[in-house]
């Protein structure tokens, strides 16, 4: 009995430690985000750094986001067609596809791909700057590291993600359209008409809101883990992994929350 009680205490204290650790991490992240946002709105601004980040995050993510959307859009149409045919409902393919892509797959897959590319790169770059004392050096060179390094990344990601997701949505629907008309015998005019008919303004707006939120988490996780990394090359590697994993989780979690809030009632 005593052994079991002892084990139970051990398990409970492990769970408690985990919860406390998690809450502390959330607190640190919130503080970090608040500080970075505060610095993003107050001068001095670094427009050159912002443009650089818009290019790095936005422009160079276009190929990977576009390809992902193209492939997923096509595959989605194929599956909806197979499923729909069983109920003589193949005509719902354009409607289901556009709703599925714009509401969920466009922002989520776009977000995950950009997170894989950008959160990791930010964590690695800032982590290396941290361990080589370049971040400390900024402070001694009359430059606030939050303003110079973090704020441009956060702002750029929040601005650029909606555009990337818009592209992903269009390319995704286009991929589906190409497969539907080329392989499944849909009439192209009818397909496009049905697509436009079922696409609502609120779908596009929720898609853009999701994208901006994901952009925020992508940059926040990359910057936070990079900024706090310690202990040389291994520390930077760990920061990079943590940045990507936590960005993925935050994207999927915030997606669920927004979906339930917007469409769940």
């Amino acid at each position, binding site marked *: 009995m005593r052994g079991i009680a002892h084990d139970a205490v051990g398990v409970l204290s492990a769970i408690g430690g985990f919860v406390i650790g998690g809450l502390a991490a959330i607190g640190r992240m919130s503080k970090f985000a608040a500080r970075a946002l505060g610095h993003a709105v107050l001068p001095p601004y670094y427009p050159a750094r912002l443009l650089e980040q818009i290019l790095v995050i936005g422009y160079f993510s276009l190929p990977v986001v576009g390809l992902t959307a193209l492939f997923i859009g096509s595959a989605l149409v194929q599956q909806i067609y197979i499923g729909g045919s069983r109920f003589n409902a193949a005509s719902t393919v354009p409607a289901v596809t556009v709703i599925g892509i714009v509401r969920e797959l466009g922002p989520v897959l776009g977000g995950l791909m950009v997170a894989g590319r950008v959160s990791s790169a930010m964590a690695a770059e800032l982590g290396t700057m941290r361990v*080589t*004392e*370049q971040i*400390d*050096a900024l*402070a*001694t*060179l*009359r*430059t*606030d590291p939050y303003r110079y390094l973090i704020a441009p990344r956060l702002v750029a990601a929040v601005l650029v993600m909606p555009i990337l997701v818009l592209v992903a949505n269009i390319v995704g629907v286009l991929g589906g359209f190409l497969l539907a008309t080329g392989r499944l015998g849909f009439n192209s005019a009818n397909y496009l008409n049905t697509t436009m008919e079922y696409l609502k303004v609120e779908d596009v707006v929720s898609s853009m809101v999701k994208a901006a939120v994901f952009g925020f988490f992508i940059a926040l996780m990359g910057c936070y883990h990079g900024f706090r990394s310690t202990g040389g090359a291994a520390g930077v590697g760990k920061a990079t992994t943590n940045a990507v994993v936590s960005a993925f989780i935050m994207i999927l979690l915030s997606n669920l929350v927004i979906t339930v809030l917007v469409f769940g009632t």
Partner: protein
Amino acid sequence: MTEIPKIALKGLRKRFGSKQVLQGVDLNICAGESMVVIGGSGTGKSVMMKCILGLIAPDAGRIEVDGVDVTHLKGRALAAHQARFGMLFQGGALFDSLSVWRNVSFALDQSRKGADLRAAAIDNLARVGLGAEVADLRPSELSGGMQKRVALARAIAPRPEIVFFDEPTTGLDPIMADVINDLIVELVRDLKITALTITHDMASVRKVADRVAMLYAGRIVWHGPREGIDATGNPYVYQFVNGRAEGPIKMAVRGG
């Protein structure tokens, strides 16, 4: 002491987790003097420096610059405090994404014209014995000694009142180390700065220091003029200066 010291540390304490790194550091650095703090690896020399710069917050104690308490500054006041310092980091800490002249002119007013900033950078490079031909190179294209010199030029470019040197000769060959030491002496003299150097290189101490302090186990165990280090009678200083494995210093030798 009637004169107000440039930098005064009073009972400075800092711990990381269970490790008490600084256990009450008391140190005065006078205006225009070159103070060198010696001590083994892991004795808290860098932590002390970063506390003064406001990069690390001490747990207890006071830091004064020109008699004004600067221990818990925040925001603009902290930025203004940090702007009074220049620092030469151990690894140089040059920004590898920027060219040499962009690095050197980094702390200068960026609203000035590009050509103007570049000229200012070249002036500062000349001060550390580098020619204009390195201005457009990337830091990664330079040797270790040249990187140190560029970092030195960057630290002095905004003409700070106080310059910190973190292990300025570590990783350099003895000749290049001597060149860097000469440069530090020259800059301290010509620019009339107050200098704080931390090092474990005795050649550097003998060349650069006006006064020397020894940090051991988180406290200053001895301080005095440079000429005094060979005859202190202090067993810690004796062991360190002469590089003996045997003596009262045990922890640091075993990498504690």
